[in-house]
């Protein structure tokens, strides 16, 4: 997994609540057996005017000029500013894969759906929860100022605006550690093999039918 330490990047405001994983990556792209290449189809139904299918040449498709990600001023954005309950719906990890492949490394919202939130960390992407008023303020600023960049510092747990105003966020210690160091979860868990074995033996004694 790629590590995440600090990031300074262009922010793009996606001003809708309850953005679901079906919107982030529509189901037809879930037929792939790979974990890369979903970026061009992130927000497919909002981003293009035609119906997208896997295997299409996306560079030839008609784009929706009104969709915020398509506005010239937001090209190259790496921070997604979103509204409440972002990433609700399905558990598809294709959603963070698509956002990451598109170029996002951090998402800021007042709240996230649990599974999506969790999936982000597994892919070197940082979901940041700020207070509703703080997110409102960022929305206002990013819309008012072209080229608006934010700086995210994971170790300090802060988001800083171009004027130097700083907001802090909380992040679970374990996840922070993994993300800062780009650690592979499986490798970490395997360090506890003996404990898992011991638990398993005792569990088998107590509930043998589970191992039948």
């Amino acid at each position, binding site marked *: 997994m790629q590590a995440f330490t600090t990031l300074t990047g262009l922010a793009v405001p996606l001003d809708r609540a309850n953005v679901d994983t079906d919107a982030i990556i529509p189901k037809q792209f879930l037929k792939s057996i790979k974990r890369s290449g979903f970026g061009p189809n992130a927000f497919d139904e909002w981003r293009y005017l035609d119906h997208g299918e896997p295997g299409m040449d996306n560079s030839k498709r008609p784009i929706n000029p009104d969709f915020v990600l398509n506005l010239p001023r937001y090209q190259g954005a790496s921070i997604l500013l979103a509204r409440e309950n972002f990433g*609700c719906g399905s*558990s598809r990890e294709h959603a963070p894969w698509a956002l990451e492949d598109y170029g996002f490394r951090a998402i800021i919202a007042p709240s996230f759906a649990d599974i999506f939130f969790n999936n982000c960390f597994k892919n070197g992407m940082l979901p940041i929860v700020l207070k509703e008023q703080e997110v409102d303020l960022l929305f206002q600023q990013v819309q008012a100022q072209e080229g608006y960049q934010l700086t995210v510092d994971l170790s300090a747990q802060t988001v800083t605006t171009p004027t130097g105003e700083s907001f802090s966020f909380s992040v679970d210690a374990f996840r922070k550690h993994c993300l800062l160091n780009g650690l592979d979860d499986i490798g970490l868990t395997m360090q506890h093999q003996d404990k898992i074995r011991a638990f398993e033996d005792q569990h088998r004694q107590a509930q043998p039918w589970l191992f*039948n």
Partner: protein
Amino acid sequence: MAAKTLYDKLFDSHVVHEENGAALIYIDRHLVHEVTSPQAFEGLRLAGRKPWRADSVVATADHNTPTTGWEKGLEGIADQVSKTQIMTLDSNIKEFGAKAYFPFMDKGQGIVHVVGPEQGATLPGMTVVCGDSHTSTHGAFGALAHGIGTSEVEHVLATQCLVQKKSKAMLIQVDGQLGHGVSAKDVALAIIAKIGTAGGTGYAIEFAGSAIRGLSMEGRMTLCNMAIEAGARAGMVSVDQTTIDYLQDKPYAPKGALWDQAVSYWRTLVSDAGAHFDQVVSLHADDIAPQVTWGTSPEMVVPVSGKVPNPAQEQDATKKSGMLRALEYMGLQADTPIQDIAIDKVFIGSCTNSRIEDLRAAAKVAQGKKIASNIKLALVVPGSGLVKAQAEAEGLDKIFTAAGFEWRQPGCSMCLAMNADRLEPGERCASTSNRNFEGRQGQGGRTHLVSPEMAAAAAIAGHFVDIRNI
């Protein structure tokens, strides 16, 4: 000892290790399907890892399988990309092993959340995971069940464990008697109307109360299935006699002395009196009417006797703009009576409502009737091969086809429209599934979530009707 919630009991009894506020919990049952597993198996292969315990895995193909053309076998799958995904599951299971595998067209194949319980592969007290958010369904058995992403699928395959933080506990208490024509689906939607789609975020929900005790296992599964639509990763119901009766003699349920031993443990899987919940929500069953969603989120729902709400009356700006967007997407005018909304298609299926009881309820409404002339397609998609066989043994298929419904092969079908079953842009559907998001059932498609009896009644009338008046 302090009084514990069912959730405490399930969580605490699976903790292998704790560090920095995160726990490593042991997973008893890992359900696998074709869409979210290929990258996980590939990850194992690349790292040279083996599954920790292949006999915890129960696999089936469901999301992407066609519901017609089975006579041609695999060749009947016109979409080559889908076919590759289904065949990839075959080869992965062959390579890595499983306790049980119900491949495409097997008589036990079906939606993973229908298959697990009906095979007795989901048992009380288990931790159950699957790369699918509706894994919450299995909590109906007094199990701790939740959806995980593909990285976690790989993690569970490799280590039999999952890194978890304990959630807060919410009790949703539904007391009283459900009225005629009111089903578990309506209870689920009424709960979401009350707490919102993010109301359960960060919580594990336990459903309790006399109305819940009165539900069959099928009904409890419908309810727990929709816990995720209320934002909760896990929903659950304490074990009682209904749970135990359902499991007796299921293929993978314990037998003989082991059964007796298991049952005596299962009976302890209830929240203790006085256990602490971080939040308690109460509903009166008698107040719940059949529900119909009008918008693009399950919380955009009203009783069938109601009207499409008017954004002019909403104070919150974000909510208001969401409502305006939803009305535009849904092609609806504010203040339209729900029963005036005409529909184009009907879908009876999905892991929410495709079990035998759901099909019986819908068939009862359709019996001796014909679907309305404006209905372009009415699909009945049983949840599994076993449900299909049972329904056919009871003659339900005949009732449906005589009424003009199509009777299909099992799978997820038009719940997510990955296969050929979908809405065309602008088409309006009465659906028994769980999500009415934009594009969920096909790009530009308009979904109204309802119960099976409400969907069948809408198919007959051509528009929504109040099932209580039939």
